Each structure stands twice: as structure tokens, then as C-alpha cells.
């Protein structure tokens, strides 16, 4: 594969370091700090077992973020397919060897840590697609044959994730990838065709879904149907949020979330604690903080002078957005319960790791924004 990197503006490590956006790191740290306090509250005013560990993990991940930010973006691009390949093999490995938990096979047991390859796939796919579309110019993007490889890059892992079965992650992966297709310049009517095809296949796919997935979708459509069954979650989290009111009941004062109406409230349903204790005002502030991070992502993306960086940044930012949106919407009963964590706040190692790696990559795009990558893939020797 012929590749030529422009030698213009090689950066020293010191220069790179000075380019890191410490203000973005500041905003991320604020969100994590809020999360640590929420975990403290979820454990009934105790740093054990979650808060302290989450804080500790964040510090490790932060260090990693900075290291990743310093990695040359061209190197990232060079290994994008390799990373995709490795994560894809992990997904296949899960298919055969994964740990079954809660009826689904999602984890690889690595002794002290568990890895959830479907989480990592979200980044790996963004990397691979960004690299692919980087090498396709605006004329070529109209040729359907050239859209086939990225489509397969998307559909193969999604198929495996659906088999786990993990509908939420699969949909999120599709939406994240869709954003890159869109930003790369794929014509809008093609999205309509694909979406329409998708809608038509719903009656075909429906019987293939797991019972609990069907149940979740049905409950979503009518949560009050059975308040003691599956709709219990949504109803209880709405009661918790709603009873919080405008200013909330005060930190550690939430009665609903402290009453264990919601199991696993330290993970996916942590926003209920936040909403109940800090109210509408607190909720707006938190959403605002997320919006700030997303805005940073868009700015980094638009300012970047190479297509790979632009697509990578927008892909990461959109994935981050999807995490936030789906989680909060799910907790408030706007979308079905799909098991998506609230980034930087929900307790959980893989989720935090995924977010922080992707933030590291975003930072790397920012640090290397002025680097031109005159790289035309296997389609042009220019």
C-alpha cells in the first residue's frame, strides 16, 4: 500500500504536550467528580465499594488518555485496520468462549479483568471507517461499489453483537457508524433507502429477537401495563426523577433511589439518583456539561486539517453523544431499556476505559490538527 505522509511540521513531544486541551480534560474531570459523588450516594454514603474504585480508575485512564493524545495521528491511521481486525477477532472469540452473564455472552474473562469487545468495537469501527473514507474523494463517494467495504465493516460486527445478544450496543454501533457515513458525504437518499429497508425487515427480525428483548420493546411502548413486571424499572425511575422536582431532595437525601427500587442503580440507572437528589436544575447542569464536551468534539473536528482526523473526531463525538442521549432517554422512559451506561458517571471498567480511550483519540486529533495527511489509499497512487 503506497502511503506518503507530508513531512511538513513534524512536532516534538514538548510541542504536542503543549497542544493538549487542558480545558477539555477539566470538563471531563468535573463530570467524573460528579459521578464519584453519585456513586458515593448510591452506596448509601460510602466510598466503598464503587466511588473510590471509579476515582482510581479514572486517574489511570486519564494518564492513558494523555499518552494516546501524544501518539502520532498518522500512526493511529496506519494501524486503524489492524486495531479493527484485533477487536473483530475478540468479538468472534466471545462468540465461542465468552462468559455468559445475565443471559448474554458479552464478556471475555481475562482473570482480573473482563473485557467487553462490543464496547471496544465502537471505537475500532470508527477508526476503520475514518481511515477508509479518508482515502475516498468526493467524486468516488457516489460509486455504490466503493460503499460496499465499509458497509461490510459495519454489518459483520453488528451481526456478531446481535448474536450475543445485545440489541442496544448493536443499534448504537450502527448509529455511530451512520454518522461517519453521513459526514463522509454519502448521499442522503441512500440513508433513506437503507432505513426503509431496515423498517421493512422488522417483521422478519422480530421473531429472531430474544424474549427479553421483545419484552423490553413492548414495555417501552406501554410502561404502565404491568407495574410489577418489566415496566417496573421505567416506572420506578420516573417516580424517582419526578419526585426530585426542580431543585431535588438534596445530596444523599434521595429516598427512592436509596430504597433499592432499582437494582444496579450504580450502573445504568445512576441518572435517577442524580435527578432525584439534584433535581431539574442539576439535570440541566449535567446535560450542559455533556454538551460542552460534545461541542469541544465538534470544534476539534471542524478545525482539523485532515479528513481522517475530522471523521475520527466526529465519530467519537457522536458515539459519546449517543451514550449520553440513549442512557438519559432510557432512564426517562423515552427509549427502551437497552443497557447503555452514562459515560464517565456509571460504575464500570470497560465503559470508562472505552470512553477515555476515545477521548484520548479525540485529543490526538486536536494535538495533530495541523498535520496534512496526503494519503490516498489503494485507489490512487498520488
Amino acid at each position: 500500500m503506497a502511503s506518503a505522509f507530508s513531512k511538513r511540521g513534524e512536532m516534538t513531544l514538548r510541542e504536542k504536550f503543549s497542544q493538549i486541551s487542558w480545558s477539555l480534560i477539566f470538563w471531563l474531570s468535573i463530570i467524573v467528580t460528579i459521578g464519584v459523588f453519585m456513586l458515593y450516594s448510591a452506596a448509601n454514603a460510602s466510598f466503598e465499594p464503587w466511588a473510590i474504585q471509579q476515582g482510581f480508575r479514572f486517574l489511570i485512564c486519564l494518564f492513558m488518555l494523555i499518552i494516546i493524545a501524544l501518539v502520532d495521528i498518522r500512526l493511529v491511521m496506519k494501524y486503524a485496520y489492524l486495531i479493527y481486525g484485533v477487536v473483530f477477532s475478540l468479538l468472534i472469540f466471545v462468540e465461542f468462549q465468552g462468559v455468559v452473564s445475565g443471559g448474554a455472552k458479552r464478556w471475555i474473562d481475562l482473570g482480573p479483568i473482563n473485557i467487553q469487545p462490543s464496547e471496544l468495537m465502537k471505537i475500532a469501527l470508527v477508526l476503520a471507517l475514518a481511515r477508509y473514507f479518508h482515502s475516498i474523494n468526493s467524486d468516488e463517494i457516489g460509486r455504490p461499489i466503493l460503499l460496499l467495504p465499509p458497509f461490510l465493516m459495519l454489518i459483520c460486527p453488528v451481526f456478531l453483537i446481535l448474536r450475543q445478544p445485545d440489541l442496544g450496543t448493536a443499534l448504537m454501533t450502527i448509529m455511530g457508524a451512520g454518522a461517519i457515513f453521513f459526514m463522509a458525504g454519502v448521499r442522503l437518499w441512500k440513508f433513506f433507502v437503507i432505513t426503509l429497508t431496515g423498517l421493512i425487515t422488522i417483521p422478519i427480525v422480530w421473531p429472531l429477537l430474544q424474549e427479553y428483548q421483545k419484552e423490553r420493546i413492548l414495555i417501552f411502548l406501554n410502561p404502565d401495563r404491568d407495574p410489577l413486571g418489566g415496566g417496573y424499572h421505567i416506572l420506578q425511575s420516573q417516580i424517582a426523577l419526578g419526585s426530585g422536582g426542580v431543585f431535588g431532595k438534596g445530596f444523599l437525601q434521595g429516598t427512592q433511589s436509596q430504597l433499592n427500587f432499582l437494582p444496579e442503580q450504580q450502573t445504568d440507572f445512576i441518572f435517577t439518583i442524580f435527578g432525584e437528589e439534584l433535581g431539574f436544575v442539576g439535570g440541566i447542569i449535567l446535560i450542559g456539561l455533556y454538551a460542552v464536551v460534545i461541542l469541544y468534539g465538534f470544534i476539534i473536528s471542524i478545525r482539523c486539517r485532515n479528513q481522517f482526523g475530522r471523521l475520527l473526531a466526529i465519530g467519537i463525538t457522536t458515539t459519546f453523544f449517543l451514550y449520553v442521549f440513549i442512557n438519559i432517554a432510557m432512564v426517562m422512559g423515552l427509549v427502551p431499556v437497552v443497557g447503555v451506561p452514562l459515560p464517565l458517571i456509571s460504575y464500570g471498567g470497560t465503559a470508562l476505559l472505552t470512553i477515555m480511550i476515545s477521548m484520548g483519540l479525540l485529543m490526538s486529533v486536536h494535538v495533530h490538527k495541523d498535520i496534512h495527511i496526503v494519503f490516498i489509499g489503494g485507489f490512487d497512487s498520488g
Partner: protein
Amino acid sequence: MLIHRDTDRIKVFNRRAIFLGGAQALLFSGLVGRMHYLQVIESDRYSMLAEENRINLRLIPPARGRILDRFGEPLAINVQNFRMLIVAEQVPNLEKLLNTLDEIIDLSKREVERIISEVQKRRSFVPVTVKDNLSWEEMAKVQVNALDLPGVVVDEGLTRFYPEKDTAAHILGYVSSVDEHELTGDPLLQLPGFRIGKAGMEKEHDYQLRGGAGTSQFEVNAMGRAIRELKRKESTPGSDLYLTLDQKLQKYASNRMGRESASCVVMNVHTGEVLAMVSTPSFDPNAFNRGLTQKEWKTLLEDPRAPMTNKAISGQYAPGSAFKMIVALAALEHGVIDTSEEIKCKGYTDLGARRFHCWEEKGHGKVSMVDAIASSCDIYFYEVAKRLGIARISEMARRFGLGELLNIGLSTERGGLVPSEEWKINRFGEQWQQGETFILGIGQGYILATPLQLAVMTSRLATSLSVMPKIIKTSEKTDNIVSGFSALNINQSDLKIIRDGMFNVVNGSKGTAKSSRINVNGHKMSGKTGTTQVKRITIEEREEGLPELDDIPWQERSHALFVAYAPHDNPKYAISVVVEHGGGGSAVAAPIARDIFKELLKDYSSQSNII
């Protein structure tokens, strides 16, 4: 060209970035809108729902399965009890409440600390046990003062009860509250006051006995009072467990052994069913369920007679002369001695510079095999062991179940030890000595066996089948003929010699246990005594004359052993008795065995359906 293409892309990108950003902003606004709806517009409705009408879920603990003896007599059952709980979220002032409670029912300082720490650890709506096993009087006091005791609930439940107290404690084990490290996924374990098996059958079969939780979903008001039950799923009680034990015999044996540090195993020689397995002193498992005080626990642990140890399966003893049947059988099988050959015993024999003594200092004179077993002559067996060598003795010992776990189903069971030449090299890095073969010939030295193994050995001698012990009753059938054990591959005529010897031990004129004979036809027993030294007798002691039993400190006295089966001509039951530091096997262990057999045969001979 390149530049052109890139600017083109940038244009598209920027245009679409605004579109995408706009879409995301719109969706976020949607979240804010929804939040506004829930937390501002509908806030009152949800607050009301939250305050006044909550749905709570409570687990219903299952009744623990009972443990019953072979006749269905209860060994471990459940009895109703009352306990006091507090629900922290309903308590306005915990300290004040505990003070009030202290005035009513007297709480110790440690209990108060425990309650406070548990309240802090658990979620505020999870009830915490204040006191278990409330008496009627305490109940009444709490009810009378109910108004001053917000958040206090009296709960009616079932608790474990062992009606026979310490009689079968080592087999049953006990239940006790769940420790932090024992928490598994089972939510039952988090229930206040829930008990799980910590030892014995209660532990080994905990899962089967535990049963499955039921659930009760109910509406509660702001005070946490249940308004109505919405849905209920009854719990699944644990399954009952039938043991092969005979509670009556178990109790008799336990009383008979009294305060001795002793153990005995009684089993059916055909089925391997253990009818009694006693280890004394014992402990009261009810105390563990109730919760031991530090002092009680310390007393149990520091008692030199080890009440917590099930000596019948964990105690390992040199079998002493009770091992001589094995040596004799090996000798006959390998033809190293003839039944008619007599060996002269003059009280000692020499091997090089070392002198080996017979227990009978005066010597037995000329003895044949049957006499040697009956009178337990050591000199005879030194000679036989010398001719056999260690390997052939060990092989025979293993065939009779020594030196390996019998897997009775209790985790504290130990396997004893049958030494071999390789074993000694591996263990000590030394060669096997001939002198060690000598003392192996009289069941001393490295060899170790548990009372259970001795009972199994005796059953196998009685039946020549490879009997295995069992303590869980698998079927209701009490047929003692069905066994299914394979033959031991022992020459029946050889075995007859050994059995004659054992008969003479108890019934012959020279027998070491003749004072313990059962003089009822059809009930006569055959057996073998054993006395194993705990401390080696020094040459000086021998010269000064052996001291009287009462002059020896308890810990230095010999262990007394006795194994037997009965009736001698139609064996049904085997027994092994080991009295730690009891002195002589004939004086201490044999009478216990005799009395237990008498009790057993008295009862069972009157029943047409013999177990």
C-alpha cells in the same frame, strides 16, 4: 487536484457537521423537555407516588429441610420463634430507640454496636435483627411499648432446633448466621437472621436443605407499613434429609461413653449403613444457631478433649493390636506361616541391638496363630511381620479400607496412613528399617486409622466383601441383604482362622476381652482389643516396673481400642471404639462395645424387620 478535492470534502463536511450538531442539540433539548415534564410539570404526581404509594418486594424465607434418622425420628427440625427487627428508615433517632429498647429487654454493649454497624452497612429499608428468640415476656413488653418504639417490628419465623442437643452434633453440624464471605448471588443469604449450614450435614447438604425463596410484592405507605399484598409466590421448602443413623442407639452410645474423649462407629456389615457415629465430648449445635459468646467459643476450642472434632472420622490413631488380623491374613495368604506352627514368646525378642517387648512381660510361651490373636501376643506378630515384609502387610491393609478416604460425605474425614517404603523415602528421605516392620506388625509406628476405617475393616473381616460406609439413607428400603459390594478376594479358610481368633479374644479362656463377652446365644460377639502407646516406654521405666494407670498424666496414657462384630456366627453389625488416653483396650474400650451391642441386639432382635 488534491487541494480541490479536499476543499470539496471540507465544504460537505462542515455543512453536514452543522446539520449533525443541530440534530444532536435538538435531541438534547428533547431530553431537557422530558426532564422538565417529569420534574416540573408532573413533579407533584410523582412526589405523591413516591411518598404515598410504593411497591416493595420482600423475600419469604423457605423452611429448612429437616434431618431425620433412619426411622424418621427428628435430628434437626424447625421451631417457631419470634425476633425483633428494626427498619432504619422508620427510626427517627436510632440511639434513642436503642436506649429505650435497652430498658425493656436489656441489650449488651456488643449487641448495640453490632446493630449500629449493621444499620450503617445495609440499605435503610432492610430490617436489622435486634434480638433473636424472643421470650413471651419480652414479646409482651415490646407490644405494650409499641408506641415508643417506631420502626420496631416483631417478626415470626422458624429457627433451627436440634432436639437431641449434642448427641449427633458432629454429624449434623450446625447452622449459623451468614458471614460476609459466604454471600453468593442468592438474595436469601442477605435476609436478616438467615442461617446456613456451617459444618457437618448442614453444610454438606446446605443447598438441598435450604430450599428456594418466595416473594411477596406489596404496597407500602410512607411509613413503610404494608397496605396490601399484590402478588405472592410461596417459598419452596428445603428437602428433608434421611440419615442411616438410629437416634436411639446414637444417644445410648453417647451416654455410655460419657465424659471420655472417645469415639465409636456402629455399622451394618452388609449395607455399610452407619447406625451410630459418636464422638465425645460433643457440643450443643443449638448454641451455634443462637450465637456463641466469645467465652463459650474459647472454651470449646481450648478443651484438650477437642469437643469440636469428630474423632470418628478425623481422629487418626495407630490401630495397635486391632491391626493383627490384617498381618495374620497377609501371612496366611502368602504362606509365610502355617496355622499349626507355633512361635515361642519369652516376653521379648531382639533385632540387632534393639529389644522388642511383648505386652505380656512374662511371655506367652508357645503360641499358634489363633492363640496369638486371642492373647494378642506381640512376639508372634514381630516374627510374622519380619517374614512378610512391609509391602505385603501394606497391600492387605489397603484391601481392608485403611490408608484411604472412604468418602462418607463429611469434609473433615481423614484418610489415615498405611506406610510404604516409598512413602518413607518421600516423607523423611530415609530408608525403611526392619525394626519399623516389626512394630507395624503390631499396628504401631507410622500406621494410622480412623475409627470409621476400623469399623469398615471389621465389617470387611466379617463379610469378606468390600463394604463401604454410608450415612445418607438413599431409599426407604430396610432390607439388609442387598449390598452390591464386590468380594474382597480373600481365601475363606484363611478368614475362618482369623474369625476363630477374634471369637477367642472375647469368648476364649485366654482372650484379652473375655470379661466383656456377651453370654447370650446368638448375640455373641467376636472382636479384638488394641492398646496403643502415646509415649514410648523407656528402658529405665521397664526396669523400674511399669507405673499404674492412675500415676500417668492423662495426656500420656495409652489409647484404648476395640473392634468387634456380632453376632459372631451370623454377623450383622460391626463396631469400633477408641477411647483416647483410656488405658487398656480390654479394660475400657471393650466394655463400651459390649454394652452398645447389647443395646442394639436387645432392640433389634425383637423386631421382625431387622435393619
